[in-house]
């Protein structure tokens, strides 16, 4: 039987080695759609993090009761419940943000990161491992979103999280806050991450 990673390993893996966005290319819909600014990107990451943590814990708790052919139904049911809770909470306490994120909060239900983690980790491992996995993956997702959003917001508006950073004379690159800017930034950052890790691997290979 294969040895499953420990909670610590799970946590670290989520950040870069198995980063949901840059390594697994999962959850790209919010990655492209809500990264026009840092604030919506971080709100989205927090929402996904909350749903992922809750879904992973619940799935891990009931993992011995799951029947293979009904497991997806159970995952979806769990995820949909927590997404609805997040959606209502945002509408009640962060109304403007909830309006800005629009349909992308309900769409977390079909975000494949969550169902993937339920399947890969939570339905096989104990609660601590599942929780550590959820935290690591959420952190990785949050970092990926924040990276893309920072580039797009800075170039597109000269601001970061709504605060002016660049001088007034900065010409806004409007394209960066539009959908094409999302694809370009994502592609270039993906290339950068691959380039850096390829460089690192080569360096390590040369050393040994």
């Amino acid at each position, binding site marked *: 039987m294969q040895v499953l990673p420990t909670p610590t390993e799970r946590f670290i893996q989520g950040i870069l080695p198995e980063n949901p966005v840059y390594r697994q290319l999962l959850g790209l819909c919010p990655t492209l759609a809500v990264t026009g600014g840092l604030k919506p990107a971080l709100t989205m990451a927090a929402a996904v993090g909350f749903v992922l943590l809750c879904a992973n814990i619940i799935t891990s708790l009931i993992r011995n009761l799951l029947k293979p052919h009904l497991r997806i139904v159970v995952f979806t049911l769990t995820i949909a419940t927590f997404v609805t809770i997040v959606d209502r909470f945002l509408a009640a306490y962060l109304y403007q943000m909830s309006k800005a994120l629009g349909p992308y909060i309900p769409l977390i239900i079909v975000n494949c990161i969550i169902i993937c983690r339920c399947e890969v980790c939570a339905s096989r491992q104990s609660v601590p491992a599942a929780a550590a996995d959820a935290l690591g993956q959420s952190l990785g997702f949050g970092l990926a979103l924040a990276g893309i959003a920072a580039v797009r917001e800075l170039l597109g508006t000269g601001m970061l999280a709504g605060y002016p950073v660049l001088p007034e004379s900065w*010409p806004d*690159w*409007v*394209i*960066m806050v*539009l959908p*094409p800017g999302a694809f*370009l930034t994502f*592609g270039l950052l993906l290339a950068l991450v691959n380039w850096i890790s390829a460089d690192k691997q080569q360096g390590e290979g040369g050393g040994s």
Partner: protein
Amino acid sequence: MTPAPLTAADTTLHVAPSPHVFNMRMTVTRMMIDVLLALLPVVLAAIYFFKWYAVKQLLICLIAAVCAEAVFSRLRARPLRLGDMSAVVTGFILGLSLPASAPWYIGVIGSVVALGVGKMVFGGLGMNLFNPAMVGRAFIMIAFAGKMAASGYLVPGSGVDILSQATPLTLLKQSGQSTSLVPMLIGATNGSLGETSALACLLGGMYLYWRKVAAWEIPAGIFLSALLVGLVNDFLTPGSGWTFAHHLTGGALCFGAFFIATDPVTSPLTPTGKWIFGLGSGTLVMVLRLFSGYPEGLMFAVLLMNAVTPLINRWTIPRPFGGA
């Protein structure tokens, strides 16, 4: 990429990415130099009409394009091929498609995007799907819409008269005014640097045709379809003062037909394919001019047709001799 000189005993089949050079005396470098020579009348007209503005804009784009090519080649660890002049051509075409007064960073960003995202990301010359200069222009057009839209062409009090008028297509779109034909033919109107003089473009186009560098089918297709749509439009909206002749000489149609759409890398290979490409581009230009929010549509038309070029190539595979 540069084919070896053909010797009598040499029966090797060269497999190389496009531009496919069939005539062995012609190399990519030779072809690019021919394009540059053909651009000469256009550049001269631009300098004559826009004075110092044209010189500045073209130099910025040229230097930025060459530097971007060098940097991206380095990043991708590829041999530097500045000698083939393709970066110079891209820089010139981009520069000629910009407004005279666009700020310096627009030319620089446009060139970097053209060479980086438009060309090197796909694997360098011959592998790109879209015309690099137009990728760069589309990027800056959307990024700096305020500077590239109608008002971006106006420079009040510049000492250059035509820079104080709106471009002919903008006048038409916004207030329905027409411009007389002669200035549009010569180039004494406002517009992007290279597009105003239909005559200079025609001269350069003739040279390209004479040197057999560019396919005649593509410009022919563009002019034919623009003419047809223009005539139908004249028939449907008579007395507007803006006729099919204005459509043919105005905007970037001439410049684009000869220098942008004919890019051998991003246009179809077979004559039939080239006809389809030309007719499609011309129709799209007219549809965009007549029905979209933009006054001119050549850039988007060419990019859209670039996207379907692989499909056109598939449709028009020539039947081998004796094949069913």
